[in-house]
């Protein structure tokens, strides 16, 4: 009977071909969506497990250069370093210097209209005044701050972040505006620093910066013991909240602000989550569409061949045998459709996925930057704070600063978003299995009602109908 079913395909070739084409599109789509779903899901869990388990501690009421209060100290960090479930603590210290004799560097940033207007507003009411923009220096205790996806060392090598030697990594923009390369030296706080490498951080603002071992920066800037941000990696996402409460009880929630990266991560991966849902719905939708096609076709054929079914029953066929004939007919159509669908899936899965991811993350990159820009202004409605002492005049470098700060204080939204770019579906032998699985699901779903119709056909009515 199975062979008869397969042969039956030839009874109406035009119809069979169109069914196969429609099914191949629906199976192809189902596969693409399934592969995308899997790839996105994997990405999400990667991101969550690699970044979602971090906690950031900043001094209460401040973010980056903005806000007031006292910096957190190495002493405080040491108090919490040995709490259970903490895997790693990464400390950063931010400082800014103005180009000058103490610091023989040119800022790669032009103040521009916004900068000048801002300086005038600050009281330097001289239209010809052309301010030089300060340079941001970041002290780091761990390589992870300047490594990762989207970041590359263009020359030289990384320094040992736990040393206190006078070495530094400079952003590509600093390197080009000062003609510096690995091995050259420059001066910061009157101290000679050797360029150990040039780094491309992936964003223009971060490429305008300089990175030093945190001890070095503490020493030369006279900020011994100070830390701007401590990023704590917890061994598992599930322990993040307990670690947060332990830190709060150790350090007192009045002295520090704690941000868990989970919030950042979930807002950063929100577009991925929505594509994931879209692909899930499309997967289900295309399977249902395929099933409905098979359902309608089978209902049509059962009706058309009602008399034949009655005759087969009268000459001794079981319902099962007749059902097998019809199911094998539609299964064959679906499998041919699946083979074509698999080809479509293999060819289009990656292009479709990257289109999906790119269109929705491009908008989200913009909105997330705008979001941080607005929110840090909100925190700081009165404009920039000009701290006293050695840090000198601090410009509000505008949205760029917020961007940069949020990217190191938060869980590097930029890193996450740029990692979306290399999302790929995994195409392997299993795609065949999934294709066949899709075909089976479609056939089974599409066959239930026709099978009932087959069992309802009465052979007596058929022979009397003559």
């Amino acid at each position, binding site marked *: 009977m199975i062979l008869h079913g397969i042969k039956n395909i030839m009874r109406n070739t035009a119809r069979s071909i169109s069914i196969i084409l429609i099914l191949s599109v629906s199976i192809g789509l189902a596969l693409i969506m399934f592969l995308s779903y899997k790839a996105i899901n994997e990405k999400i869990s990667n991101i969550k497990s690699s970044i979602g388990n971090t906690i950031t501690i900043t001094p209460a009421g401040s973010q980056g250069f903005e806000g007031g209060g006292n910096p957190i100290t190495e002493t405080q960090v040491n108090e919490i370093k040995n709490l259970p479930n903490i895997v790693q603590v990464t400390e950063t210290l931010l400082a800014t210097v103005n180009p000058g004799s103490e610091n023989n560097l040119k800022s790669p940033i032009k103040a521009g209209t916004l900068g000048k207007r801002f300086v005038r507003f600050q009281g330097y009411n001289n239209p010809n005044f052309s301010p030089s923009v300060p340079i941001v220096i970041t002290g780091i205790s761990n390589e992870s701050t300047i490594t990762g996806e989207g970041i590359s060392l263009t020359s030289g090598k990384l320094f040992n972040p736990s040393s206190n030697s006078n070495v530094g990594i400079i952003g590509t923009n600093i390197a080009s505006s000062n003609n510096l390369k690995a091995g050259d030296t420059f001066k910061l706080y009157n101290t000679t620093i050797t360029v150990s490498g040039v780094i491309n951080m992936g964003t223009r603002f971060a490429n305008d910066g300089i990175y030093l071992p945190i001890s070095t920066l503490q020493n030369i800037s006279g900020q011994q013991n100070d830390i701007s941000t401590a990023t704590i990696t917890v061994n598992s996402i599930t322990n993040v909240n307990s670690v947060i409460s332990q830190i709060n009880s150790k350090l007192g929630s009045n002295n520090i602000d704690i941000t868990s990266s989970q919030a950042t991560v979930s807002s950063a991966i929100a577009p991925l989550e929505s594509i994931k849902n879209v692909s899930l719905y499309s997967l289900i939708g295309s399977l249902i569409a395929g099933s409905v096609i098979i359902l309608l076709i089978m209902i049509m054929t059962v009706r058309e061949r009602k008399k034949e079914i009655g005759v087969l029953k009268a000459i001794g066929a*079981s319902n099962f045998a007749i059902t097998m004939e019809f199911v094998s007919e539609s299964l064959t159509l679906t499998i041919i459709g699946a083979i074509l669908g698999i080809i479509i899936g293999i060819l289009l899965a990656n292009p479709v996925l990257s289109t999906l991811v790119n269109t929705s993350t491009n908008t989200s990159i913009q909105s997330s930057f705008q979001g941080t820009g607005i929110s840090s202004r909100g925190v700081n409605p009165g404009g920039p704070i000009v701290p006293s002492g050695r840090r000198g005049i601090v410009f509000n470098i505008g949205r760029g600063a917020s961007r940069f700060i949020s990217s190191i204080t938060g869980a590097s939204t930029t890193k996450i978003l740029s990692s979306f770019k290399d999302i790929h579906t995994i195409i392997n032998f299993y795609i065949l299995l999934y294709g066949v699985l899709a075909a089976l699901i479609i056939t089974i779903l599409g066959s239930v009602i026709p099978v009932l119709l087959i069992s309802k056909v009465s052979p007596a009515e058929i022979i009397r109908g003559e």
Partner: protein
Amino acid sequence: MIKIDNITKKFKSGDSTVKALDNVSFSINKGDFVSIIGKSGSGKTTLLALMGALEKPTEGSIVVDGEDITKMSDSKLIKYRRDKIGFIFQQYNLIPNLTALENVMLPMEFAGVKIKDRINRAKDLLNKVGIDSTKQKRKPSRLSGGEQQRVSIARALGNRPSLILADEPTGNLDSTTGKSIITLLNKLSKSNNTTIIIVTHDINMTKYTDITFKITDGKLSLAKSKKDKSVLS
């Protein structure tokens, strides 16, 4: 070998009930060639459908080879139809996309006969009913009515049934062809000792059969018996 006892078949159509068969009883022996004659609507097809287990009677019993088919389970009924009964229809009812040979092989396929044996037996049967090997490869649409009916006879014989039920087998054929079909059935019944019941409204066909029943408005009566047997019980 077939004993029909007081069967009644009622159909409900709307408010009224139609008695298609009214208290019918008869018995026939193995190898009998039986005709049932009656006008259209008299209940002939209904009687065949009951004997072929396509329907159940409202009342009464049908005992074939010692088993009451009105009390059989569905799965036993499928086997009964497959192994004991051969159906021949007025419209031939061959499967249009299968060749003559494949049509004949079909009931044997349901019975699980091996493909080689199926082919051999189907060829044998087709040769016996006068369909040569070139015509065996043809689809029904390329065979004449008489040829199609011969193929359907061969199909009915596939599983060596003990009872062949033919519902107006000559109804669509001209009288010469019809005659040749009846002679063929007669020959088969004699050579294989197969019981054959044909239903017809053509009085001419009754002269080939051993026993003839007449059916009028669902009531059965004996019209003629060559063997002079007592068949009405």
